[in-house]
């Protein structure tokens, strides 16, 4: 059973429908008491970093997520949910994140290295490039996935970078360290490639279940 964290910042319907499609049971909840009964967590999210962190704190979900990760069960942040895993963001100021991964969230530059203008948001299908082997990437292939975001993760640890996409800058696309995973794009909207990635996360969940 996956727990989808409902903190008022995401399109939960498309994530839950994607899990339906690949046959993974889930609950949607904002309650730590409910969510703690699950074997894996998904932190979705669209919108602003500051608001999202404020809501997580308000519902004491920030502490809950930390405890959950300490228990060894897997966590997947999607889009803004991935950005929240990092130390801080400079979206509309400077705000502290969950700090589960090292790195900062910064705005996509207006121009690339050649001075060509980059449209922001980075919106549409972009190709994954893998950086290292990881179970979450098993049988996925360097396919196309659907991105919509204006900020990206910078200064992260090389060893946590599993896949990236190129958009003027190197955009970390799949990140992972131990049981903490993030996807900057929307796997639930990324056709077969996205479904496979979600299925792999669910597999990681089953494996952790055996450990517990």
């Amino acid at each position: 059973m996956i727990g989808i964290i409902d903190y008022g910042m995401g399109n939960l319907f498309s994530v839950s429908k994607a899990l339906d499609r690949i046959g993974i049971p889930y609950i949607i909840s904002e309650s730590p008491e409910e969510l703690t009964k699950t074997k894996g967590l998904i932190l979705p999210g669209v919108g602003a970093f500051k608001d999202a962190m404020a809501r997580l704190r308000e519902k004491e979900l920030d502490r809950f997520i930390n405890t959950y990760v300490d228990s060894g069960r897997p966590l997947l942040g999607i889009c803004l949910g991935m950005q929240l895993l990092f130390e801080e963001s400079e979206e509309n100021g400077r705000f502290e994140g969950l700090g589960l991964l090292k790195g900062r969230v910064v705005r996509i530059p207006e121009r690339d290295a050649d001075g060509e203008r980059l449209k922001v948001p980075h919106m549409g299908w972009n190709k994954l490039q893998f950086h290292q082997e990881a179970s979450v990437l098993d049988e996925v292939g360097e396919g196309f996935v659907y991105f919509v975001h204006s900020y990206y993760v910078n200064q992260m640890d090389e060893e946590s970078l599993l896949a990236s996409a190129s958009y003027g800058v190197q955009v970390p696309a799949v990140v992972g360290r131990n049981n903490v995973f993030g996807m900057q794009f929307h796997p639930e909207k990324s056709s077969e490639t996205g479904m496979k990635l979600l299925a792999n996360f669910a597999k990681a969940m089953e494996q952790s279940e055996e450990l517990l």
Partner: protein
Amino acid sequence: MMTKRIIPCLDVKEGRVVKGIQFVELRDAGDPVELARVYDQQGADELVFLDISASVEGRKTMVDVVQAVASELAIPFTVGGGINALDDMKRILRAGADKVSLNTAAVNNPDLINEGAAFFGSQCIVIAIDAKYDSEIGTWRVYTHGGRTPTERTVIDWAKEAVERGAGEILLTSMDEDGSKKGFDIALTKAVGDAVSVPVIASGGAGNAQHFLDVFKEAKADAALAASIFHYKETGVGEVKQFLRNAEVNVR
């Protein structure tokens, strides 16, 4: 590298797809879910549903359509038509749409863009602009109410304002080219693309695969939308993409 997006558009009225769809292999050419699936299989990058229902009941049916499509599809889709307030956006997005497209309502009440962007994020808010060239003022004029009502606004200024207010994407329809099958409006698409920092979807005038290549190469559109050439199977999404691939345009 980003890919250029090909987006089929479906007109939905009272929950059914209307306006001449000729997919003979379908059991039911009026079922939006089934058509969405066909376009998905053909490699569509995204879909747009335009609700042209006249009644409140019809609008409610649209919510069911959105839910059904969201359950079936793993590609993004946008819903437009009849969205006049934040509550309308909530209803459509909660039903599973990824973006809402605002047209007349945004022109009449531009604050709606700010409200929507603040609540759901800019990535959810598409501003649809119906543009017609006006030789008297020497630029394109914004039309509302399905192209029936001219406004005082010019397209470039309105596009800029919409983006400043939080629009994440512009769906730009050329009324001059719409239905002509002579190609997208290159000058219009380029002018808007140069003026705004967000992606622009070109719409109106697609007649063949070359037209997509033209609007991507010459006008630097980020995406291109078409309805009838896909519905009437004059060309398929896959064929257009193969043509673009051969011309070294990045597509999925």
